[in-house]
């Protein structure tokens, strides 16, 4: 396949077992996955399938208990210490006491950039997510979609090549979500970043991705990996084409094969 080294993320036989009061829970089991530079990979599956957990393992927010994983050829911890990725959470998670531009500046302050450099990066990322003009606003003054865009700007601010997104548009209505999906593709095309994107929406996964990883629960595992045959240039109405529908059907079959809906 198209696996040019070096891989951005590479996992083999990856497993994670949480120790809970009700005994061990296997959140991830035997995950084999390689993500190359510039890919847009979606993780899709029902709740409890470990898609978010997998993303958190890549981000070093959880530690794997079995198998091996590397991020940019390093352990996830080393990669995190080198600030190898930007992370976008399910909610915007902006600090309410900071203006939008100060929120975007937060990671830049932490890595210790000069004021001049901060201002330049803020300007660039705010333009990238179409939020120019809202720099001085506080988060509560923005709509949910704009807040999430601000959080994407924050994740992009320190210019990591890898963007990890955990259901970033899950809480938004469909019209806003379509709009943001379009903008995200545009941003991906312009920046050539590698994006890992967790979602539970089939159309969203098919529309955005170059590769779709279908997962199923109990234990969380990968049941299918689907290469998208869609072109990189994707207008919103590509979702009406037979090609798009065929991929969506395959994703749906994959989800069903994982026995994910039989409880």
């Amino acid at each position: 396949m198209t696996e040019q080294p070096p891989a951005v993320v590479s996992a083999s036989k990856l497993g994670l077992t949480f120790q809970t009061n009700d005994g061990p829970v296997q959140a991830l089991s035997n995950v084999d996955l390689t993500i190359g530079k510039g890919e847009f990979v979606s993780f899709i599956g029902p709740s409890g399938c470990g898609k978010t957990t997998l993303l958190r393992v890549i981000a070093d927010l959880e530690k794997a208990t079995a198998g091996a994983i590397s991020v940019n050829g390093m352990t996830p911890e080393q990669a995190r210490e080198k600030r190898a990725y930007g992370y976008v959470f399910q909610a915007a998670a902006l600090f309410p006491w900071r203006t939008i531009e100060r929120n975007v500046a937060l990671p830049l302050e932490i890595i210790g950039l000069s004021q001049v450099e901060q201002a330049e990066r803020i300007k660039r990322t705010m333009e990238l997510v179409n939020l120019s003009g809202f720099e001085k606003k506080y988060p509560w003054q923005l709509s949910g979609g704009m807040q999430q865009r601000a959080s994407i700007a924050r994740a992009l601010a320190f210019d990591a090549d890898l963007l990890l997104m955990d259901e970033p548009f899950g809480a938004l209505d469909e019209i806003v979500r379509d709009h943001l999906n379009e903008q995200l593709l545009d941003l991906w095309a312009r920046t050539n970043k590698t994006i890992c994107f967790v979602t539970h929406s089939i159309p969203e996964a098919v529309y955005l991705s170059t590769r779709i990883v279908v997962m199923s629960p109990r234990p969380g595992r990968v049941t299918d990996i689907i290469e998208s045959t869609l072109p990189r240039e994707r207008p919103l109405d590509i979702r009406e084409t037979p090609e798009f529908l065929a991929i969506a059907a395959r994703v749906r079959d994959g989800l069903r094969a994982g026995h994910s809906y039989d409880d």
Partner: protein
Amino acid sequence: MDTFRSKIIPVTSILAGVVVLWYVFAVILNAPFQRDLDARAKETPGAVEFIGKTLAQPKPTLPAPHQVAVNFFENTFLRSVTSNRSLVYNAWVTLSSTLLGFAFGTALGIVIAVGIVHVATLDRSLMPWIIASQTIPILAVAPMIIVVLAAIGITGLIPKALISTYLSFFPVAVGMVKGLRSPEIMHLDLMHTYNASASQTFWKLRVPASVPFLFTSMKVAVAASLVGAIVGELPTGAVAGIGAKLLAGAYYSQTIDIWSALVAGSVVAALLVMVVGIAGRLVDRAMGGRPA
């Protein structure tokens, strides 16, 4: 207009109710003594005259509101502020030790909270003692503090302020522990993804998140500080201060003086809580708080 309807009318109605009840009880409580006086003087006043006399005794069991009001007015506005009978002078004496104790208490409370949040051992060892400290009656502790400190030559403002500190550090410590632990998991995860140091997480996330908690607990603490300062004046035979006025009034059965000192104390308490509240709102505004 809205605040007028939603706040002023209900508050004044309650106040009017309290004043009416107060008059009723003043008549009832002062009546037996007045009856004795009249019997001795062999007078038989009519009902209206009798009620009038119960409300005009020089040392009533319960002074009437207007007696307290007149006394309060005279001792606040008609006396030179340097006179030791002036309520302004006495309130200032109490206020100065309140403020000093409040400053100590707030600082101590914050330091304790930071320790508890960052050092697991302190979390387990310190908290029970802090809670226990507040179960000891302050009236029992206050004289000992004054006496012990006087024995080593510390008198005046500091001992009283320390009693205020003792009462005011507690709400601040408890509130700040809660405040410093208030950031959401997602915000902490975010700082983790940036590989932020513990001190960066503290200054950029925990401290700003704790500010609303700080002001809420400071409102409780400042009122407790005032109580501490007044209690500190009681056992020492302090010559000035609201506590000293209360004590002197009790010695000489000057009930009207006691009540007007009480009113002075309440006014000071209300002003202190208001000032802290306004400061809290200004800080909230500066931190991008959503206008209510």
